[in-house]
């Protein structure tokens, strides 16, 4: 392979990563047919891989890809329109019209929900023809809103975002979620079919709808970060390394597109500040290191500064929310890198505010841990017992037992601490977390 072709390949791959979501959003927006846009776009990328090394990289790679994909879509819609002009075929009223099975797509007199693309395709062609390939609009936020639309199953929203906006394959996403690839592929196909069949619009929610719609979008983006911690199998966790970087990319994209939404900035801050500490999360021996034991010298200072900037921009907007508070909590922890000590009093204020705003079991257990640091282990255990009374589901909530074990140990209740560690180990999904808990239990004094 000639040296020049390597560069061209690298350019094509870079264009692929940077442009995939932008181009897919623009191509799918007019008709809502994400699957057709994906097919057209992957054809365009394939052609780029053949022709760019041979003929050189075009001056406007994204515009080139868009033009090729647009031509592919136009061909598809034209042939669909021809099929539709034929009289309605027999069988149009049977199951194929109901669930829109793609298997009928090549048969004579293709019908079913695919068919609306025929007339919508005319609209689609017009919309795509009028695009300026030198200044391609960014419709990724509309695509993110489609993925997190209330008519889409909550469980598939994050995978759908990773798949459509970042171009992750079903196999990658399946590995992160520890489910079979076939299962994930099926969920994605169904969701895309539903978007097209019910015609979920690619629009920015109106200012009145945004407060209602945005939390689901932020939740789904945060979900991409959270699966890194939640997925159980150590092998699966190793596969995409982590989706934390992808989650940060989505959050920062949102922050660039909605710079006046404090919770969007709060989410970007939270992810930047959390991810900044990942390098210290594992010891040289592959052991999990608890936050308070981490060496701040290993934290990513540039990423911390980036997170702090988002948080500073959110504050003057004057609307506090869950993600801003969680980011402020992370910021307080990160401040140890500068001051050398953890400001537990500040953390107590922030955790108290978070519980008031969003009284989840996780937030309440975290507050109990902080109160244990500030007012002593007995006070922390009192708060924890109150949580257990209100929320019977804490009986199977791993952080509850880990916190209880820690506070019991601090209070000198060794037997209780040991029992709580045992329960925490049982409930921990991650083998590295189990090992860390066992080490802590092993360090308990005899008794």
């Amino acid at each position, binding site marked *: 392979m000639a040296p020049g072709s390597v560069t061209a390949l690298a350019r094509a791959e870079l264009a692929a990563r940077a442009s995939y979501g932008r181009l897919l959003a623009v191509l799918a927006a007019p008709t809502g047919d994400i699957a057709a846009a994906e097919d057209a776009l992957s054809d365009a990328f394939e052609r780029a891989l053949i022709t760019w090394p041979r003929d050189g990289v075009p001056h406007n790679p994204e515009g080139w890809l868009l033009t090729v994909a647009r031509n592919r879509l136009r061909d598809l819609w034209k042939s669909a329109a021809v099929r539709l002009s034929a009289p*309605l075929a027999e069988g149009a009223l049977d199951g194929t019209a109901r669930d829109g099975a793609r298997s009928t797509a090549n048969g004579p007199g293709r*019908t079913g929900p695919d*068919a*609306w693309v025929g007339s919508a395709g005319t609209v689609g062609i017009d919309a795509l023809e009028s695009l300026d390939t030198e200044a391609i609009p960014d419709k990724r936020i509309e695509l993110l809103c489609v993925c997190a639309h*209330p*008519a889409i199953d909550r469980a598939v929203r994050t995978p759908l975002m990773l798949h459509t906006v970042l171009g992750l394959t079903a196999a990658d996403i399946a590995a992160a979620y520890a489910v079979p690839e076939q299962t994930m592929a099926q969920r994605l196909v169904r969701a895309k079919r539903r978007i097209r069949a019910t*015609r*979920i619009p690619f629009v920015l929610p109106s200012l009145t709808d945004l407060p209602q719609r945005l939390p689901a979008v932020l939740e789904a983006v945060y979900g991409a970060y959270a699966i890194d911690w939640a997925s159980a199998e150590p092998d699966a966790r190793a596969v995409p390394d982590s989706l934390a970087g992808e989650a940060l990319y989505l959050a920062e994209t949102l922050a660039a597109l909605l710079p006046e939404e404090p919770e969007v900035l709060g989410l970007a801050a939270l992810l930047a500040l959390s991810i900044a500490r990942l390098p210290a999360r594992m010891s040289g021996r592959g052991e999990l290191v608890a936050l308070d034991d981490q060496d701040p010298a290993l934290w990513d200072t540039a990423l911390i500064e980036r997170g702090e900037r988002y948080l500073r921009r959110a504050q003057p907007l004057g609307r506090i929310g869950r993600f801003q508070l969680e980011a402020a909590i992370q910021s307080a922890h990160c401040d140890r890198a500068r001051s050398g000590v953890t400001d537990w009093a500040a953390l107590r204020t922030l955790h108290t505010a978070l519980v008031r705003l969003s009284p989840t079991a996780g937030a309440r257990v975290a507050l109990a841990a902080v109160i244990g640091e500030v007012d002593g282990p007995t006070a922390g255990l009192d708060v924890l017992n109150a949580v257990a009374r209100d929320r019977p589901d804490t009986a199977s909530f791993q952080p509850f037992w880990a916190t209880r074990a820690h506070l019991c140990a601090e209070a000198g209740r060794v037997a209780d601490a040991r029992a709580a560690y045992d329960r925490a180990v049982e409930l921990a999904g991650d083998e590295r977390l189990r090992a860390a808990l066992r080490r802590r239990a092993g360090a308990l004094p005899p008794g």
Partner: protein
Amino acid sequence: MQYSLLVISQESGDAGITEEDMEWGRAAFDAYGKALDAAGVLVSADILQPVSASTTVSLRDGALQIQDGPFADTKERLNGTFVIEVPDLDAALDWAGKCPAAQYGAIEVRPSAIVFTDGEWHQVA
């Protein structure tokens, strides 16, 4: 895009509603129908008679079967339909939320696949 807003609720006879409730319902549905009409999105609207007046026809098992009663006997029933023509699902959901029946029942929103107009079946856009 054409959507059917399917009104799923208890029947008035089962729900134990008062004349006062009925009065509210008449006024609310009157206003809703007129709002759909004024917005130019209404294709048709029906409030159905009770399922006791329902007869179900099927040839699924080969021979014609005509049965008294609804297709599925459940506590909540299909009691009305509003067929509307709007650009997308968000608009349809918006109208569904405004339906008075959403306050005591549920509105299922289903896009149409094929409709019969001008003497023949058409794919709907």
